[in-house]
């Protein structure tokens, strides 16, 4: 047996946008074990619920993460709405669906760029982010912000999108779809790219199930589960199929995310077609009393929001279980037996969002 050595990886590493530390136990170049430590950017956002009233906390909730900020805000709002028994107008539900899918688009495009950057394909990274920029512009035109949207409130939405705006967005999405079809060839068919992705980081269906993975990471291992099927927002009216792959390697995760991009564009098209007219918010009276678990499918997987109210304007407890936290054990499993040079890509394929994880 060769000598074991420990190589520290992170918290600051060129491939990681956010800090996470791994101690990699190596035998020659092969990783035998990875020991994670998290907690570098804990901000105490869950504790803050005792200081901010339940309406103000929407703005804290969407700051949990900069990428899925819309979905964090929405997940919290839906949880409080369920506690208070508020039924939001149908138009608000559709608006939430459209913004959710736009979030998924920009998150997956960002991930594709980061993946390209991790295996050293700079121009592919630039192309992915160029497309993402158009979606951020769409966000700015509709919500007023590029990262933090502040359009959710308890009882509906703060801003509406009129017919012309939605038509304009569809036109941009058609362009993006065309460009994406061209770009996905490079991700899925190119020999050089495939040599970095295929056959590395296997996670079997059984492992994915046992380790409690979520999102595209889980679906790439063949588990057919998507929280959107539970029908929150307007997803119950929209026709879509869960995208899965059976390969379970890094290539499968890329494939699942690329297919989800096309699916998101399709969901936005359906939502724009079906969106009803009417109010976008209902007035909310009283304070939340009771508790609720809300599950939302974020770009990275299923997030769980637990809200407990006590009949005053301050909530007792808010707990967020974020997708990256659930995916960390699965990621450590894929690292076992991999080469040291593959570690950055394997960490990236779960689409880690450490700010979410630590809150």
């Amino acid at each position, binding site marked *: 047996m060769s000598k074991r050595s420990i190589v520290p990886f992170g918290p600051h590493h060129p491939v990681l946008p956010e800090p996470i530390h791994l101690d990699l136990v190596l035998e020659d170049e092969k990783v035998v074990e990875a020991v994670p430590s998290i907690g570098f950017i804990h901000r105490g956002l869950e504790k803050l619920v005792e200081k*901010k009233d339940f309406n103000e906390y929407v703005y804290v909730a969407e700051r949990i993460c900069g990428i899925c900020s819309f979905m964090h805000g929405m997940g919290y709002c839906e949880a409080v709405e369920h506690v208070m028994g508020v039924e939001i107008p149908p138009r608000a539900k559709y608006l939430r669906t459209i913004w959710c899918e736009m979030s998924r688009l920009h998150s997956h495009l960002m991930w594709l760029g980061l993946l390209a950057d991790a295996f050293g394909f700079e*121009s592919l990274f630039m192309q992915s982010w160029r497309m993402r920029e158009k979606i951020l512009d769409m966000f*700015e035109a509709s*919500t007023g912000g590029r990262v933090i949207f502040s359009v959710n409130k308890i009882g509906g939405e703060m801003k509406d999108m009129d017919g012309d705006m939605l038509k304009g967005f569809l036109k941009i999405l058609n362009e993006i779809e065309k460009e994406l079809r061209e770009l996905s060839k490079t991700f899925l068919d190119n*020999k050089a790219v495939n040599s970095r992705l295929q056959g590395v980081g296997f996670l079997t269906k059984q492992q994915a199930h046992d380790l409690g993975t979520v999102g595209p990471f889980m679906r790439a291992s063949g588990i057919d589960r998507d929280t959107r099927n539970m029908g929150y927002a307007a997803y119950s009216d929209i026709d879509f199929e869960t995208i899965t792959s059976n390969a379970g390697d890094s290539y499968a995760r890329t494939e699942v995310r690329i297919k989800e991009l096309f699916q998101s564009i399709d969901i936005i098209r359906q939502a724009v077609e079906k969106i009803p007219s009417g109010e976008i918010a209902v007035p909310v009276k009283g304070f939340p009393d009771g508790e609720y678990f809300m599950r939302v499918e974020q770009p990275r997987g299923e997030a769980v929001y637990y809200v407990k109210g006590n009949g005053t304007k301050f909530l007792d407890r808010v707990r967020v279980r974020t997708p990256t936290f659930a995916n960390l054990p699965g990621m450590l499993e894929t690292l076992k037996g991999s080469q040291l040079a593959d570690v950055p890509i394997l960490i990236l394929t779960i689409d880690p969002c450490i700010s979410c994880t630590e809150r």
Partner: protein
Amino acid sequence: MKLLTFAKTELHNLFSKPATRLYPQEPRVYPERTRGHVENDMDVCVFCGLCSKKCPTGAIIVDRAAKTWSIKRFSCIQCGYCVASCPKKCISMRPDYTQPAGEKSTETFTQAPKDDQSAS
């Protein structure tokens, strides 16, 4: 598995305009809804203090006696909660961002004395 899958994108890039803006020469045009900074129409304001109470970061200070409305520009997170809760609808969100500054300052606005009481 193919080679040269990126060639089409590459050629297109060679003969198309840059995707980026030539920034200082070509200024950024903000969409109408951009949440840049908060403005208060001092002539309409009744100094009820609701915006100050609702502000999640405590950036707004309202003094009813002195008839002043102050905002800490660098504490404001442009969430728009004050705009939504203003009973007189005199607070509005403007597209341009706050200018960079060397130190965090508070901007104070004072209401001009009114001749006609019915104007408010």
